[in-house]
C-alpha cells in the first residue's frame, strides 16, 4: 500500500503543478498569432510519441550530478535530484505535459472570440477576461486536464524507472511495484496492485467522460 500512496501523492502533485504551468502556456497557445506556434505545440506533444525511456534518459542526464539541473540542485540542497521524489515529480511533469495542455488549449480556443471582444470593449484587460470569461467557460477542460494528467502519471512506468529507480516509499510507485512482484513471481501481490490501479484509472476516466465527452481532443483545428 505504500507504493499506491506514493503513486497517488506523485500524481496529485504533478496534476497540481501541471495546472499551474499549463494554464499560462495553454492561454498563450490559444491566443497567439505567432507563426512559430507549431514548434511549441510539437515540443509539448513530444512525450506522446517518445518512448518513456528516451525522455527518462535525458531527464536523468540533466538531473545527474554533472547535469545542469543536477548541479544547481546539488549546490542548493547538497544531494542529487535523481532518485528522489522531487526528481520524479519533475520528470512526470514533463512526461504528462501534453495531457494537461491539450485539453486546456482546446477549452480556451472554444470560447467564442466575440465574447472576448465584448469584454475588451467593455474595458476588461487580458487578466480579467481570462479570470472572469475564459476560465469559467473552460471548467470542463480544466477538469479534463487535471484528471488526465493525474491518471497518466499514476500509470507511468518507464520514466519512473529511469529517473527514480526503485526506492521503497521514495520512488517505488505502483507500476514499479507490480513489475517487482512479477519479477519475483509474486502473482497474487501483483494482481492486487494491478486491480487497484485498474479500478482507480477506470473511476478517473469515467469521471471525465461524464463531465466532458471531448476528452481526447487533438490540437483543435480552428
Amino acid at each position, binding site marked *: 500500500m505504500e507504493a499506491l500512496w506514493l503513486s497517488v501523492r506523485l500524481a496529485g502533485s504533478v496534476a497540481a503543478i501541471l495546472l499551474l504551468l499549463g494554464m499560462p502556456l495553454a492561454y498563450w497557445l490559444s491566443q497567439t498569432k505567432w507563426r512559430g506556434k507549431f514548434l511549441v505545440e510539437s515540443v509539448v506533444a513530444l512525450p506522446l510519441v517518445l518512448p518513456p525511456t528516451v525522455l527518462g534518459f535525458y531527464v536523468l542526464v540533466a538531473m545527474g550530478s554533472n547535469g545542469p539541473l543536477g548541479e544547481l540542485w546539488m549546490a542548493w540542497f547538497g544531494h542529487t535530484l535523481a532518485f528522489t521524489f522531487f526528481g520524479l515529480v519533475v520528470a512526470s511533469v514533463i512526461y504528462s505535459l501534453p495531457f494537461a495542455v491539450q485539453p486546456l488549449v482546446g477549452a480556451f480556443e472554444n470560447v*467564442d472570440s*466575440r*465574447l472576448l*471582444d*465584448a*469584454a*475588451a*470593449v*467593455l*474595458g*476588461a*484587460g487580458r487578466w*480579467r477576461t481570462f479570470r*472572469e*470569461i475564459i476560465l*469559467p*467557460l473552460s471548467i470542463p477542460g480544466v477538469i479534463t486536464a487535471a484528471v488526465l494528467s493525474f491518471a497518466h502519471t499514476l500509470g507511468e512506468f518507464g520514466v519512473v524507472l529511469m529517473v527514480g529507480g526503485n526506492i521503497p516509499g521514495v520512488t517505488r510507485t505502483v507500476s514499479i511495484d507490480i513489475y517487482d512482484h512479477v519479477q519475483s513471481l509474486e502473482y497474487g501481490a501483483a494482481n492486487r496492485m494491478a486491480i487497484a490501479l485498474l479500478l482507480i484509472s477506470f473511476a478517473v476516466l469515467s469521471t471525465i467522460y461524464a463531465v466532458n465527452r471531448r476528452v481526447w481532443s487533438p490540437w483543435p483545428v480552428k
Partner: protein
Amino acid sequence: MTAPMLDVRMRFERPARQQAAFELNVEFQIGAGITILFGPSGSGKSTLLDCIAGLLKPRDARMLLGETIVQDSATGTFLPPQERHIAYLFQAPALFPHMTVEENAGFGLHHAPEDERRSTVNYLLAAFRVEHLAKRKPREISGGEAQRVALARALAPAPKAVLLDEPLQGLDAELKSSIVDDLRSWNRANQLPILYVTHHRDEVDALGERVIALDHGRVVGEGIPHTVLDAPRTKRLARAAGFENYLTAEVLELREADGVMRARLAGSNAELELPLGYAAVSDQVHVAIRAGDILLATQRPVGLSARNILEGTIDSVEIRGATVVCRVNAGAAFLVHVTPGALRALEIAVGKRVWLVIKTHSCQLVD
C-alpha cells in the same frame, strides 16, 4: 449637422490569404444621432466597425472621438479597445453565458462603487425593458431580450460613441423598431454619435437620419437616405438598395438640351430613354430600375408623360405575399411588381402581351 464627434480616416488592407485581398479606404465624420452605414454584405462594414472599436488595427489611420485621438498612425498612437469608451454591439448579443443578465449588464462597471453600479444597471435594464429578467441566465431569455440586455451592457460604462453591427437581424420588424425607439429615447439625453450598420433597405428607411453608403471598401454615397439610396452608384449597391432590374445598354444618342440620352438594350432592339450620364455615343452603360417603378399595361398606352413604353410578353408570374412578381420579356428580362388586385383586374397570365411603362428618371445609371 453638429460638430463632428467621430472623425474617421483610415486605410485597412487584408492580404489575400483565406479570403480575397480586400482594402478598406474610408473617410467620414458623424455627429450626434443615428448614422446608418449601408452596404451589401462583404462591403467592409463589420471590418470598419472593428477598426473603430480598436479590435483591428488599420495600418494607416487617424481617428478622433470628440477631442480624443483614438488612433493616429503618424504619431503611433493607438488606444486599445479597453481605453476607447466605444460601445459595440455585434450581430449576436454575445452575452456572457455563465453570468446573469444583471451581471452581464454590470460587467463594464467593475471599477464603479457597488451602489452606483447597481443603480446604473437597474436604470438601463429598465430603459430597455428587461429589468424583470435581471436574475436570469442568457440561455433563459429570447433573442430580442438578449439584444436588449446587450445594449444595456454596452451603454452602462457611459460610452462616447455607439457602434451597432446589424444587431437586430433576425428579429421581427415590430420588435426591431421598439428596440430602436428605446435606443433613440436613451440617446435623446446622451447625444452620442451612433453608427448603425445594416444591409437592409427597409431598415434604412425606418431609422434614416443620415446614411453613409459603403461598397468595395469605399464610401460611395453620403447624405439623407432618400438621395443616397435612390440614386445608387454601383450595381451591388443597387441590388442591396432594392433595384431588382439591372440592365446593360448601348448609348445611341445624347440629347444634352433635354438632359437625356437614348440607349439600346443589349441583345435586343428595345430602346430606352435614360437620364444623361457620363457616357459617349456607343458606350456601354448600366441601368438599375426598381420593379415597383415599372407600370404594366395590357394595351399600348397613349397620352402619357413617361417616355419609355416597351412591348413584351409575360414569362412567369409568382405571388409573394402581397406582391406579385412578373417576369416580362421585352427584349431584355424585366421584373415588375404589381398588386394581387392588379393581377386579377388585368388578367395577367403567362404568355399575355403587355406594355411596360418606365419614366426616364426611374432609370438609374450605375457603375
